[in-house]
């Protein structure tokens, strides 16, 4: 990581702004366009080995591009240095602790990357005949079975591209189900502590969103829910544990209220890490659940994506799942509609320990679901992410999955306990996998949640999620995950205690943070008021 404080004193950037710096610690890396020089090449294509015709002979002139696209002209070493240097301006899980609440920034095992990059997966075309794709189809099928077991849901679709896409798919299923019942319900209830994607997904599907206020304990207010959940309510969208890191202890009654009113319950599974091996949403009575493979199942966040947001449903909602569905077409001699988990003696040699399908099974993609909501994307979903998540679950196994929830909850409570003396924690006595601090006390003394977050960067820790959930003033949402050691947690506590002490004595040192990062605080107002969203060649 570049440290601004370490940048050699007296070194000035090239005034022409075409910086070709050889100073390794220079935290300014020009844009690749600024490194462009006419005639430079990075990559050579093979020569044309078929008899070449002029382009004009093949295409009418009016269809042709007149001006070349001004892509940079750079050499291979330019490109390699450029991306290597800018990569070093990032914090990441591999370099820094990332206590981002609700984001589950756990370690991304390397073996997952290794398996996802196997040629037999990366070079497989989605329209190849299914006989060519039996390996991947088996993997996806077995992965669905694993998710069913972990979540307690009856069936899964792996298609949604991310959590929010899963939410949308869930909303479409709810609408299709209600239509089938001949009911038009136009309302979705969302607690005020919910992720922003929840109301946005419901609205995208044409639903009216009613926000209900949490009770004094930070949980769903049962009385209010009963009043609000009328016959025009299609579903409740709930997050459990909620975004305060609290388990909704009345979850079973909440589901009953929705069901008694003829409605459904959608569960945002962003916080599933807390429940791994501890409890299952399917057993709580939820009807639809999305899982974030990039949170709970260790696939990397990639600087914003790709993720994957498979959704699980109960038996009655199965007919509405998007197509295609991955199914067993047949086994030798037997037709199979739905297969239960296969016992030990019937495992495939391909899956010496973990198969739920048998060796003779043939898989296919089934489009024949007349009640289905249809397609939610082209092809079959983020297969690359599923390979990673499947690899993770094979490595973990049953005992590993159970330890995930346990150690995630343990780590969060340990941090919570140690910080409670220094910061307000408005809700709960204990927590699940995360908890929310309020920095209102510190704000009164001259440093806000934002300032504390920035100061943490100077200590080498990524900031927690701040100003969310909206129901906590000066919120700082902290989620350590199970993949951090006691020592890391102690170091983080130490930093937060130091910051609390600094705020008492010299709050300006916190307000002026960060000082050691590649850049200081950016002017976000300028960015929004005078949007400059691409590089443009400077004239003259």
């Amino acid at each position, binding site marked *: 990581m570049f440290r601004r404080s370490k940048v050699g004193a007296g070194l000035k950037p090239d005034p022409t702004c075409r910086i070709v710096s050889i100073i390794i610690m220079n935290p300014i890396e020009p844009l690749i366009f600024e490194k462009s020089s006419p005639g430079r090449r990075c990559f050579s294509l093979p020569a044309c080995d078929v008899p070449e015709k002029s382009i004009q002979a093949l295409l009418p002139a009016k269809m042709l591009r007149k001006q070349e696209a001004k892509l940079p002209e750079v050499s291979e070493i330019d490109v390699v240095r450029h991306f290597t240097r800018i990569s070093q301006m990032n914090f990441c899980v591999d370099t820094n602790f990332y206590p981002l609440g609700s984001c589950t920034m756990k370690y991304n095992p390397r073996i997952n990357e290794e398996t996802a990059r196997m040629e037999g997966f990366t070079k497989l075309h989605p329209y190849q005949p299914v006989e060519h794709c039996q390996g991947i189809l088996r993997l996806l099928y077995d992965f669905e079975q694993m998710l069913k077991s972990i979540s307690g849901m009856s069936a899964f679709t792996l298609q949604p591209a991310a959590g929010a896409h899963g939410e949308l798919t869930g909303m479409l299923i709810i609408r299709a189900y209600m239509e089938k019942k001949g009911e038009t319900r136009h309302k979705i209830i969302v607690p005020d502590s919910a992720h922003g994607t929840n109301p946005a997904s419901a609205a995208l599907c044409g639903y009216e969103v009613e926000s209900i206020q949490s009770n004094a304990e930070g949980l769903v207010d049962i009385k209010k829910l009963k009043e609000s959940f009328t016959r025009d309510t299609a579903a409740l969208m709930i997050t459990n544990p909620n975004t305060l890191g609290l388990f909704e202890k009345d979850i079973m009654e909440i589901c009953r209220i929705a069901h008694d009113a003829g409605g459904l319950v959608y569960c945002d599974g962003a916080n599933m890490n807390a429940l791994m091996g501890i409890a299952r949403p399917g057993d709580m009575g939820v009807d639809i659940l999305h899982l974030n493979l990039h949170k709970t199942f260790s696939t990397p966040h990639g600087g914003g994506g790709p993720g994957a947001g498979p959704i699980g449903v109960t038996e009655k909602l199965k007919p509405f799942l998007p197509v295609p569905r991955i199914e067993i077409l047949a086994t030798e001699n037997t037709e199979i509609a739905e297969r239960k988990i296969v016992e030990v003696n019937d495992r495939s040699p391909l899956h010496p320990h973990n198969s739920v399908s048998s060796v003779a099974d043939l898989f296919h993609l089934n489009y024949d679901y007349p009640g289905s909501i249809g397609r939610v994307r082209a092809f079959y979903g983020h297969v690359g992410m599923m390979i990673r998540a499947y690899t993770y679950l094979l490595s973990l196994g049953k005992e590993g999955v159970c330890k995930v929830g346990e150690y995630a909850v343990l780590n969060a409570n340990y941090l919570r306990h*140690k910080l409670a003396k220094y910061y307000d924690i408005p809700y709960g006595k204990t927590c699940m996998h995360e908890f929310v601090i309020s920095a209102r006390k510190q704000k009164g003394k001259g440093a806000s949640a934002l300032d504390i977050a920035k100061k943490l960067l100077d200590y080498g820790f990524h900031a927690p999620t701040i100003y969310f959930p909206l129901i906590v003033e000066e919120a700082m949402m902290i989620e350590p995950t199970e993949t951090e050691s006691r020592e890391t947690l102690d170091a983080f506590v130490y930093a937060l205690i130091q910051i609390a002490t600094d705020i008492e004595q010299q709050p300006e040192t916190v307000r002026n943070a960060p000082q050691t990062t590649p850049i200081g605080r950016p002017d976000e107002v300028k*960015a929004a008021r005078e949007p400059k969203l691409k590089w443009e060649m400077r004239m003259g």
Partner: protein
Amino acid sequence: MDYIPNTERDKEIMLKEMGISSFESLLENIPKSLRNFSLTLQKGLSEPEVLKLLQDLSKNNTHTNNCISFLGAGAYEHYIPTIVDHLASRSEFYTCYTPYQPEVSQGTLQVIYEFQTLMCELTGMDVANASMYDGSTALIEAALLSIRLKERNKVVCSRAIHPEYRQVLKTYLKGFGTEIVEIDAPEGITDVNQLEKVLGDKTAAVLVQNPNFFGCIEDMEAISNITHKYDALFVACVNPISLGVLKPPGEYNADIAVGEAQVLGNYLNYGGPYLGFFTVKKELLRKMPGRIAGETVDSTGKRCFVLTLQAREQHIRRQKATSNICTNQALLALRACIYLCALGKKGIAELGNLNLQKSHYACEKLSALNIFEPSFKKPFFNEFVLKARGNHRITKINEYLLTKGIIGGLDISAFYPELSNSMLLCVTETKTRESIDRLVAELDKMR
């Protein structure tokens, strides 16, 4: 392996420090009845065991490297320069979060900014966002933007758009009260006369793909003019590789240009993850879905980058956001960015030309056999449709080719019943003359 550093001993120390006798007491809010279930997972495996298992599964697939494939249809095989994998494998890029803390995310932010610039250069559009899930959802977001902006309830869509994209459009718009009108493409391109007949003051947008699903190049200029006559938005869904030679959407006055950028340095991956891109004219900037990076200065006046115009997004605007998208395809956008830098100004034009030359060579050779005839007589880029003649059957032809290690074109009769016994072939720069000649020679034996 569970990747959990803390041991039983750590756990005891931690619980003791918290003054708690057992871990279970932390779970007292969870009803007892929920704690009683059995996981039907097997025992965890060691690294060599997992690797062996996945290797076996991957070998149980026949992939495009151990046969010659002429499949395209929305997912394309292009050569990926080695530096793309190497640079995108830096964990500073792939293990970081969305760059909400710009001070420690300049790497990701600069990549997004460069990606936006590259996509604008390629498409000739004014503004690009940081990415969408895939080509299909990018197209749907363009339709949704148009419906919101124009407050009209009809979307007109060429039937030559990828059939799966049109299916997704139907899924999203069902129940919205939005009418989707499809325009035929009897001669391989969208019927402009039919299009003009259905346009009116209810039309929010006209959606056209170029090159379209059949590989044919549309008269985008004409469609754009007609669309604007009715004050609707013109949405172009384009293949970025084709823009090395084809006229970019900015030049035919498209309002929104979207598409699938898997072609830019991303693997086939059995259909995903892919990379949707989304570009607009500057008037539509504040209606755009998804994340956008912008330039600004830091506290010392130094140039830097941030996520900006976030008031459009779900985490601020909730149900009033321009889209529900949160997680996007940042890592694939990084790959596209590296790929385009590697190709450079000359490379993208050369690549476009190679695709054009090879596909035309293949089409000419195949059409000379008595087995096929081209289904359409329109200009095309790197894909074309052939219809089997006489007693020849596409299914039989493809079955035969598979026995020779060749994957023929996609049989499109399931998508277009009127185009029975036809296949869509794709020839990119990855096909050598030798492999094309082999396809021709094998088919010649079937005469």
